[in-house]
């Protein structure tokens, strides 16, 4: 390999066919005289612009559909040299760091010698060592292209905002499960908004047996084993549900507040009494109708109960998870959009309440396709306010444009699976932690189950890894029409 050009933080390297370098690989450009080396990542592989190549190709053009048949008497065997030159490639590389005295700095301000520099592939384990991608809480994500393991540290997810994105069936949920199971293994509290019931069997092996996490996985299905009593709900949480999920107008919300206060003073906070109170409340008929319609929405959701004994499971699970680690899977499958919003509003409110009062230390929240249940104002809340309370969110989506730009800008880690759509890549490339060229170029060519890991978990050295297999029962498979009936 030979250093050809450097423009800004892009270097172009001439590579020959036997050198076998691919997109995503890291190269070390060592200048022994300068005592420094550049670490550069290949973001694109192009044909080198060889003089006379067009003539060479034109000469070999078919004669009426077939190549001109002939015999070459090439006694000096020059042909392999011609092929060697023709197949030379130009590696477009992004400079990631400078190594000097075994320490890394992000500088790319110096120019290595073009004639004297030695360029070689930098094995990922060596890069991980140099970048000090290690820690006490390892999570083995999978293997890199050179078959070395890629291990991140769970603490790099702690207090961070993460995004897992990629098109359908590329392995996003699989990676989420891997992260969740490892976090649970390190006694973390994890909450999953499970839209398609994919995480329900996180505690089971592929052959249906209990795995090591079985006792730590708690599945809560709204209106079945996950219900709440009005007494457990703070007024502001219920108002949030009424205003944001059920679109209750401001005037009606004020009346509702009075009704609530009245019931609370009489220690009669339950659904039955709430219905009676609205019926007997002296107010404008339109307000009353508005309140009634929302009341019935709450009743019909089945999420609210007057039996306090039925409504203790969430807190029980959270406290159990606090002690031993655990994942609380909120099964939102078969739940209507309004009901999903009610559940999520309640849960987030409850979490903030428990975290504010230090009943919980922190939780890792995994939110699949959050745009389907998260109200607009929550996005900013999650990356700012809730983060300070100790809710560390991981968004999982195959529609990257449903996540706001400011979320990408503030994301600490991105796990990017294959995207072919330019628009999708454009959206993700707004992330502050990596340049757009790297993301667009590498993500397009990622095979299934391979992800480009960006951000703090890899100390800002983008790496491609094949996510390792998990012995977990697969759920959430798409129901098909043309299935074998035998």
């Amino acid at each position, binding site marked *: 390999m030979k250093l050809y050009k450097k423009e800004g933080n892009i270097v172009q390297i001439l590579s020959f066919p036997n050198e076998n370098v691919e997109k995503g690989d890291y190269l070390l450009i060592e200048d022994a005289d300068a005592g420094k080396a550049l670490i550069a990542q290949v973001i694109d592989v192009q044909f080198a612009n060889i*003089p006379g190549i067009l003539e060479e190709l034109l000469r070999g053009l078919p004669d009426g559909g077939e190549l001109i048949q002939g015999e070459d008497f090439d006694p000096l065997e020059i042909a392999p040299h011609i092929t060697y030159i023709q197949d030379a490639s130009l590696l477009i590389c992004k400079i990631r760091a400078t190594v000097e005295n075994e320490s890394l700095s992000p500088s790319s301000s110096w120019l290595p010698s073009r004639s004297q520099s030695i360029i070689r592939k930098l094995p990922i384990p060596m890069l991980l060592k140099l970048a000090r991608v290690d820690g006490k809480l390892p999570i083995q994500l999978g293997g890199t292209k050179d078959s070395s393991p890629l291990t991140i540290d769970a603490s790099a997810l702690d207090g961070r905002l993460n995004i897992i994105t990629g098109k359908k069936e590329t392995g996003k949920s699989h990676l989420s499960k891997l992260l969740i199971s490892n976090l649970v293994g390190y006694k973390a509290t994890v909450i999953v908004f499970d839209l398609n019931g994919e995480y329900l069997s996180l505690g089971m092996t592929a052959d249906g047996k209990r795995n090591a996490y079985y006792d730590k996985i708690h599945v809560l299905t709204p209106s079945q084993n996950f219900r709440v009593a009005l007494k457990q709900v703070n007024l502001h949480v219920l108002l949030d549900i009424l205003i944001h999920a059920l679109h209750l107008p401001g005037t009606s919300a004020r009346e509702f507040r009075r009704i609530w206060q009245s019931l609370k003073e009489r220690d009669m906070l339950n659904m039955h009494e709430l219905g009676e109170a609205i019926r007997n409340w002296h107010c404008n008929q339109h307000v009353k109708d508005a309140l009634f319609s929302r009341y019935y929405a709450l009743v019909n959701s089945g999420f609210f109960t007057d039996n306090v004994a039925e409504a203790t499971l969430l807190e029980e699970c959270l406290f159990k998870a606090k002690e031993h680690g655990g994942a609380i899977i909120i099964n939102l499958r078969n739940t209507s959009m309004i009901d999903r919003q009610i559940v999520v509003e309640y849960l987030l409110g409850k979490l903030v309440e428990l975290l504010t009062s230090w009943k919980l230390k922190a939780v890792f929240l995994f939110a699949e396709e959050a745009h389907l249940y998260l109200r607009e104002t929550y996005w900013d809340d999650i990356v700012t306010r809730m983060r300070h309370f100790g809710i560390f969110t991981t968004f999982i989506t195959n529609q990257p444009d449903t996540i706001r730009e400011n979320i990408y800008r503030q994301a600490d880690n991105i796990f990017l699976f294959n995207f072919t759509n330019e628009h999708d890549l454009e959206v993700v490339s707004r992330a502050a932690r990596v340049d757009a060229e790297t993301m667009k170029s590498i993500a397009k060519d990622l095979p299934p189950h391979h992800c480009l890991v960006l951000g703090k978990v890899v100390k800002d050295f983008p790496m491609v890894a094949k996510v390792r297999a998990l012995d977990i029962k697969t759920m959430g498979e798409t129901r098909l029409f043309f299935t074998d009936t035998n």
Partner: protein
Amino acid sequence: METALPQRLIQLSMNSLKNVQNQNFQLIQQNLQATQFLQPIPLKPRKEPAIIAAVDTSSIKIGETSTGILIAIRGANIWKQNRHYRYIRLGPFILHITEENKKEVYNSLQNALNPSSENHQNPPNLQQMPTRLASLLERWLQKMLSKTLNNGIILFDGSLTSGTPDTPTKTMKEILETARKKENTVLAFSKMTNLRLNGHIITEILPTHKPPYMLEAVGLRAKPPIVLFGDVYVAKLSNGNYAFRLDIDKEIPLPQKIEAVEKLLGNDLLAQGYPETLRLAHILCTFTANEVIAMQHFITRKCGVKIINRPDMHRLLFGVFGKGEANS
């Protein structure tokens, strides 16, 4: 005798390259060129099958060493049969030519071509060596083709003029005699000519006549030692502004000459009035920049020569007005 030439070339190539080991050589570039006169004869394409074959060679200087030059030569025979083109390409042969070995290299090749020849030419100067060695290879390929082909049309690049250092009279005579014995007709196309009529280049003063046709140039007298082995025509074989000097073996009767050109029209493509077979022969043996780099790579690897770029004094002194030394 005939098959000895490639073997001799390989031997020469390897021997000459041995001398270049551990010498530095400088990269330079260069180009090649060619030469000549009139009653309108209308032509009709003859569709009866005939083999059309062509020969061309190419040479290039790929660098300089402290003692000489590194050159490459290559030749191609191409023929069209049953609507398909086939080829045999020889080379590239890379040679290191120095003042010391040029005579040996040149004479060895001449001997391989024509061992019975008594009056061997003196070797040319180093600058002329690439084209002269390519000419030797070209004559040998022409000889091979005229010997192996039966009842075909053989296309040469250039003219049938001999008595020049490039084309000894004896060699040309032998080639044409062999071709005649095998009932082949040799047609030589010149892309450029210096032949003039009333002060005008012959290919530029064409009568208004519907192509394809050819015009005979009469009254041409060559001064010794130049010998014209062909009758000279201007051929305009397709619509457009392209006409070429065409030399046809003098010893062939006129009807056979016309028949040969008509068979060419009926059996080969003639885009811009130039036979495709001859065009392909040229294309196949021409060196591309890519190949030059590959040969330099080969020499560096095989002979351990470290390539250095000698500063181009023209560029250095005249900047953008300097065309480069190869073009000076």
